[in-house]
């Protein structure tokens, strides 16, 4: 599986997205994915990013990026404005993940969510053996300076999708360079879900978060 700008999640997302569609990338960093999608898939893209230096690089790269907080930014777009709304490696950093996911399914037909799998065996082992907040390749931070404030696994996300009535259109799990199909909750380092609001099921309006 090739990588895009050294990011495997980008390569997977890049493959999931159909050409000539409208894409919103939440937490788009320096706009690498948006630029790649524009060049290779003629996508009409927008991005949201909080960090000023990254926003400048993204705009300099030609991406239409808005500097702001993604959790409130997603509320400003009209209903179903995008074919895909992408949230890559950021869900675990958001304050109200459910509100963000609902917002994504309101403004987009499909939500593509990539996150590090907290169910991976290395996390479980690290926790079991050390008795301390686990630090692994995918979760390299000390508990006190980690951007991650929620920890979820492949199974956690699937359970949420089920309770919300969302339809999982596709699920791709990877470890290293390989795709994982056997025991994904144990073996996957990164999970990428493509989700829709489900047949005839309207996403609930965003209420008070939490």
């Amino acid at each position, binding site marked *: 599986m090739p990588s895009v700008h050294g990011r495997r999640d980008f390569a997977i997302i890049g493959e999931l997205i159909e050409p000539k569609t409208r894409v919103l990338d939440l937490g788009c960093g320096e706009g690498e994915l948006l630029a790649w999608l524009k060049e290779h898939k003629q996508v*009409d893209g*927008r991005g949201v990013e909080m960090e*000023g230096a990254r*926003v*400048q*690089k993204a*705009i*300099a*790269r*030609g*991406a*239409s*990026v*808005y*500097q*702001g907080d993604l959790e409130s*930014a997603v509320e*400003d*777009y*009209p209903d179903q*404005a995008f074919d895909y709304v992408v949230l890559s490696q950021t869900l675990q950093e958001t304050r109200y993940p459910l509100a963000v996911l609902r917002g994504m399914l309101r403004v987009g037909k499909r939500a593509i969510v990539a996150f590090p799998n907290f169910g991976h065996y290395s996390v479980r082992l690290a926790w079991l053996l050390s008795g301390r907040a686990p630090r692994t390749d995918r979760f390299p931070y000390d508990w006190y300076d980690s951007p991650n404030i929620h920890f979820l696994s492949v199974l956690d996300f699937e359970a949420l999708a089920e309770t919300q009535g969302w339809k999982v259109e596709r699920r791709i799990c990877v470890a290293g360079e390989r795709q994982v199909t056997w025991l994904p909750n144990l073996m996957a380092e990164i999970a990428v879900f493509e989700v829709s609001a489900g047949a005839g099921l309207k996403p609930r309006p965003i209420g008070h978060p939490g």
Partner: protein
Amino acid sequence: MVTEVASCTFDRLELDSGVTIAPVEVAYETYGELNAARSNAVLIVHAFSGDAHAAGEGGWWSSMIGPGKAFDTDKYFVICSNVLGGCRGTTGPGSVNPETGCPWALSFPQVTIADMVRLQKMLIDHLGIGRLLTVSGGSMGGMQALEWAVTYPDRVASAIPIATTARHSAQQIAFNEVGRQAIMADPDWNNGNYYGGRLPGRGLAVARMVGHITYMSDESMREKFGRKLRTPDQFEVESYLKYRGYKFVDRFDANSYIYITRAMDTFDLTQRGALPTLFEANEARFLLISFTSDWLYPPYQSLEIVKALRGRNCDVAYCNLDARYGHDSFLVEVEQQTEVVRGFLASTFREAAANV
């Protein structure tokens, strides 16, 4: 850099007020060369006290316009004209009213930002340019850029409004009014009929001094002047403001000050409808820039416009640049601004070429 200094006269210009000015002259400069497809034209619109001389020696935005700069004159054909109501070559209150043979002074009709833009559009038509690659400016220039995008959306591939607003706040109107009152309090004011006599220079200088304070930030003033003394009984900052104030009198007409600040104060895009509705189906690309230390045109005013654009899913980029120089940042702190404008413009140019 290929440069042309020119002016052009049109038979008549109809104003928002219903009054017609006939004839009307517009002074402009161009830099670089128009390509064969006429697709590389950039209109630069100046701020309150600017003029058509935007680039080259002494140009007010020479940091941004020129070979290899953000508005790269090796790639783009850059146009800048003096605004209607101005005093730097374009018809304004200091021009001679053909009916009386005397300067208009306060009999000059009130002009608006939309009137300024209408005259610019006549110039762009005259130059044979169908669609501008971009229209860009800061402060009052940003208002004109917005006006262009809202009124002539099919004539601009993009707009870059910088450090601007869709309408002045009470604070912005208040500072302008202090400037106007300072001019009118001058003993030589003579109700605007001072041409050929003593100019209301003291009033105009005071107005400019107040303006300069609002363009800077607390931080930049501390850095630049602190409590330094120029002479035993004069602070550095006092001397600087007086110098800038009196220098301004040499190049600016007090009546233009009054007319142009009124045009800024009365500019209000929301009078034509809620902001999002004004951008409905607008296909231009937008880049809005604000500055963290700009307290005269604070970032929230840019954000209001950006939110409206996003609410209609328009193609908009926005960044709030870390800058120390207050409102002046768009003129003096151009490194980050150059990076984003250059990239935005290059991608817009590529897309416009691909869509031809």
